[in-house]
């Protein structure tokens, strides 16, 4: 495997798959940054478990992307040999972890959406995507339960934990809307029943998030969903740093294995 970056085809199905695979890989990487640093051993393992689930989802999606593209790219090629502008993940998942509360709030916002999304994808007309969804839907249900319970515990906990949960939500909220929108090149896939239209999940997602926020005693920001662009490869500064760490070994020692 050469160290030079790969070029991507513009096939809509390929890009649809890569967008979700990149979400899972990047959030999984962010959560893995907590390994050895979480506030308690039990949570250290919990976050690592979620990170591994996400990595597994990313891997399954990348493997299928390789089949769809037909250019001989495997999971490693997609993960290690693309530049930031060719990564198509949500801006939400690439944001730095911040403190524990912000990390948990992000898992909650993302999982509350993905739980609905994967449920819908189990009925995808694409058999391979439906099969990946059937496994992912069980994993994300637990991620949501775990994160939502923490949001309630933090929001309804001490003044400091409440303040941190509220601050994390305020910071991440502008990025959350990108999940709820589709890209123009996904319209045909949605019409064909291959992809799920995220717009139809907006109301149920908001309902779930509102319910947990109410129980946690935190308020949903009224700021608009102003930040997007990740789906088209427009990333923030943090993404370059993240990929520098994620890709370092393969870029420095091409085709290295152990």
């Amino acid at each position, binding site marked *: 495997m050469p160290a030079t970056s790969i070029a991507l085809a513009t096939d809509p199905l390929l890009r649809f798959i890569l967008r979700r695979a990149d979400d899972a890989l990047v959030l999984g990487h962010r959560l893995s940054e907590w390994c050895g640093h979480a506030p*308690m*051993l*039990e*949570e250290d*393992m*919990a976050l690592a*478990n979620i990170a591994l689930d996400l990595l597994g989802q990313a891997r399954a999606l990348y493997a299928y992307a390789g089949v769809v593209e037909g250019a001989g790219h495997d999971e490693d090629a997609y993960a290690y040999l693309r530049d930031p502008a060719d990564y198509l993940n949500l801006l939400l998942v690439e944001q730095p972890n911040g403190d524990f509360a912000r990390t948990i709030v992000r898992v909650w916002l993302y999982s509350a959406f993905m739980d609905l999304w994967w449920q819908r994808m189990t009925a995808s007309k694409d058999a391979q995507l439906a099969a990946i969804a059937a496994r992912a839907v069980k994993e994300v249900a*637990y991620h949501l*339960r*775990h994160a939502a*319970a923490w949001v309630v*515990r933090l929001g309804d906990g001490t003044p400091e934990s409440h303040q941190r949960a509220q601050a994390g939500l305020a910071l991440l909220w502008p990025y959350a809307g990108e999940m709820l929108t589709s890209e123009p090149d996904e319209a045909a896939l949605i019409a064909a029943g291959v992809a799920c239209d995220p717009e139809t999940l907006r109301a149920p997602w908001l309902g779930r998030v509102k319910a947990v926020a109410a129980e946690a005693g935190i308020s949903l920001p009224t700021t608009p969903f102003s930040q997007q662009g990740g789906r088209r490869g427009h990333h923030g500064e943090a993404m370059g740093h993240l990929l520098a760490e994620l890709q370092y070994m393969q870029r420095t020692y091409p085709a290295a294995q152990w």
Partner: protein
Amino acid sequence: MATPRFPLWEVFIRSRTGLAHRHVGSLHAVDATSALDAARDLFTRRNEGVSIWVVPSASLVASDPGDKAMMFDPASDKIYRHPTFYEVPDEVGHM
């Protein structure tokens, strides 16, 4: 860190339906729900179980090691309590 906010919990896992729950370890958690979550994340990562019990360690009543002689030694010479004097027919299999 067994503070009042992070009490200790004992974890019991049943590996298969039909078997009994077995003690596998302990953990710290703020409440029963998070204890159950943590038990799942710590002790069932490799398909170890199909059911979990968590019990506050403070709820366990344990025998005193100092009472060992009184509690357990008298049983050591009652060999007639072991069913070793019976012929078990082969058809019975494992008892």
